[in-house]
């Protein structure tokens, strides 16, 4: 059966994803009497790379644009402008004929395993569907491949799972099915959108470990979207922090956690609860609440909430992301 082996592609460059000046604006407030609509800047001019075999964490609060970014990378959402190159393919110019081969190399795992699996399909149908649509293998080969994947994600023995329906499985098992479905075509890049946030703790660790094992075994690169910095620290090589459509900081995971530079990252880190009653956390140094980036004024996005904001932050445009320390980028006028 003809499956692309992503491990063979290693000599063809070490960047798998390259995003440049990516934007996604949504019209809002359009009504019958209001022709002129405002624009919500969900993702506003972000650029980043993912190295082959790397896990990049995209972290931020709800509404910061992290899911929209992930969806654009697999072309479930079309960007307003900007370029996305995934595995040497320009995502924005893929023709519908080339969509099939593209989806074999790029997959997505969704947050909610209760919604992402069709309740009327058996586990075999769900996991083999990507093989069907891409005409990979005959029935026998598909069965073999599905059994192999189910075993690999810990649903053993596969025969006891293949012909069951999603409602017969627990949340953790469903998410394992979703992972098997994403990886059955042997993709080289996977967008994982909060794949463990709906799962209970004792189940979550197992799924996180599974994702990491699969990365080792299949040489997969991930964009791992999460709101949980502790999870990102555990899973990701680098972390990008998003705030209102902008990447405000990006660096190695330990570097972001131990030496956060941007005032927003600092606030975010100090707000994470700690499982130790003896630790007194400092009060996060941030004002007000999150607003929506609708027709944002040309100043720093974080200005309203920033504890250290100066005149320059209001008077100049949102700061560029730039290297402040070695391989540690931040977007702040004051750094």
């Amino acid at each position, binding site marked *: 059966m003809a499956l692309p082996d992503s491990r063979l592609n290693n000599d063809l460059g070490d960047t798998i994803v390259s995003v440049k000046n990516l934007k996604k604006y949504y019209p809002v407030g359009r009504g019958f009497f209001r022709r002129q609509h405002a624009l919500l800047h969900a993702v506003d001019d972000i650029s980043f790379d993912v190295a082959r075999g790397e896990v990049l964490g995209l972290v931020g609060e709800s509404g910061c644009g992290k899911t929209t970014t992930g969806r654009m990378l697999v072309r479930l959402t079309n960007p307003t402008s900007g370029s996305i190159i995934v595995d040497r393919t320009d995502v924005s110019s893929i023709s519908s004929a080339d969509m099939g081969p593209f989806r074999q190399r790029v997959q997505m795992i969704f947050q909610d395993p209760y919604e992402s699996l069709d309740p009327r399909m058996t586990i075999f149908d769900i996991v083999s569907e990507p093989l069907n649509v891409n005409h990979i293998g005959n029935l026998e080969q598909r069965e073999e491949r599905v059994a192999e994947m189910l075993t690999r994600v810990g649903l053993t023995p596969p025969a006891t799972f293949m012909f069951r329906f999603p409602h017969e499985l627990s949340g953790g098992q469903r998410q394992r099915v979703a992972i098997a479905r994403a990886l059955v075509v042997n993709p080289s890049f996977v967008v994982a959108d909060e794949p463990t946030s709906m799962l209970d*703790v004792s189940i979550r660790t197992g799924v996180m470990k599974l994702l990491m094992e699969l990365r080792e075994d299949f040489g997969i690169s991930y964009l791992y979207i999460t709101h949980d910095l*502790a999870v990102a620290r555990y899973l990701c090589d680098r972390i990008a922090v998003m705030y209102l459509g902008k990447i405000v900081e990006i660096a190695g995971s330990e570097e972001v956690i131990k030496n956060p530079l941007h005032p927003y990252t600092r606030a975010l880190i100090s707000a994470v609860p700690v*499982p130790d009653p003896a630790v007194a*956390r400092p009060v996060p140094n941030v004002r007000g609440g999150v607003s929506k980036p609708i027709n944002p004024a040309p100043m720093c996005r974080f200005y309203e909430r920033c504890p250290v904001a100066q005149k320059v932050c209001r008077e100049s445009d949102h700061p560029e992301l730039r290297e402040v320390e070695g391989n540690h980028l931040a977007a702040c006028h004051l750094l």
Partner: protein
Amino acid sequence: MDALLSVEDFTMHYRTKAGWVQAVDGVSFALKRGQSLGLVGESGCGKTSVAMSIMRLLPYNSEIKQGRITLGGRDVYAMTSEEFRQVRWKEISMIFQAAMNALNPVYTVGSQIVEAIVEHEPETTEEEARRRVAELFDLVGIPAERADHYPHEYSGGMKQRAVIAMALACNPSLIIADEPTTALDVIVQDKILREMEEIRRRINMSMIYISHDISVIAEVSDIVGVMYAGKLMEIGEADDVFKRPRHPYTYGLMHAYPSILGSKRDLATIPGEPPNLMSPPPGCRFNPRCDRATDECRAVEPPLTKVGPEHRIACHNPVWAPSRGGEQVGAAR
């Protein structure tokens, strides 16, 4: 002991078509005035069922098999429903899970709280109730003029604050908060938890926090109770439970969480999945997932026994090593 709330050997099952679901089984704990209790456990462990039992809000298909719940010395289930109506909201109130979505969209937030006050305290005039709402909003940090706004004009965090104000409306001595911050972002969560704790201290109120997040529980609780499959597995003062968890489930739960403190470490996995509560395993309900299980664990259900002055566990074969969490005390952030 001057317990405000006492739950004694409480067992409550749900009747379903498929059989009895043993949702709460032999749970006992007591709470003093001004104390906060954190109940932690995974979905389906019975923590919300315990809250609903205390609030006397159980569905029709529930049955109390044994035990009792007393509030201020009075048996909750011996009161007539009219008597308990006087207790609910005035002595004990609850912040429900995702309650911020339960605000009625067609009434202003203020009028919904006024209604709750007037309903439970008929002697209060609307004028007085309005003034109380202004005080409550001040207490939870919402500008008073926002009382005339509708829920859709509030952010998620503000809705949650309004729901807290509503729970405080009749000056209860105990509030049960079921996952009060689960849908919120961390920065908002941090603010709301700090505010709730400050209010609790200021008016010497008792609090039961219910959460799946052991970190949230660690931050707000004087006493921590860990539930698993309808059973209270471990309960004790927060410092004891977190520094020296004795029950293997508590220990596993604590080490399954990644932390942003200390050095990056490997995570412990708890194998398997929680049992079906229609046919829980014999003996200890955790035994199929426990790496310390013995024949005794598989046959005899462990009773809740004392291992310290205020520390009790239900385990035949407890953990004696201190948790790694304890070693990290004082670690630089």
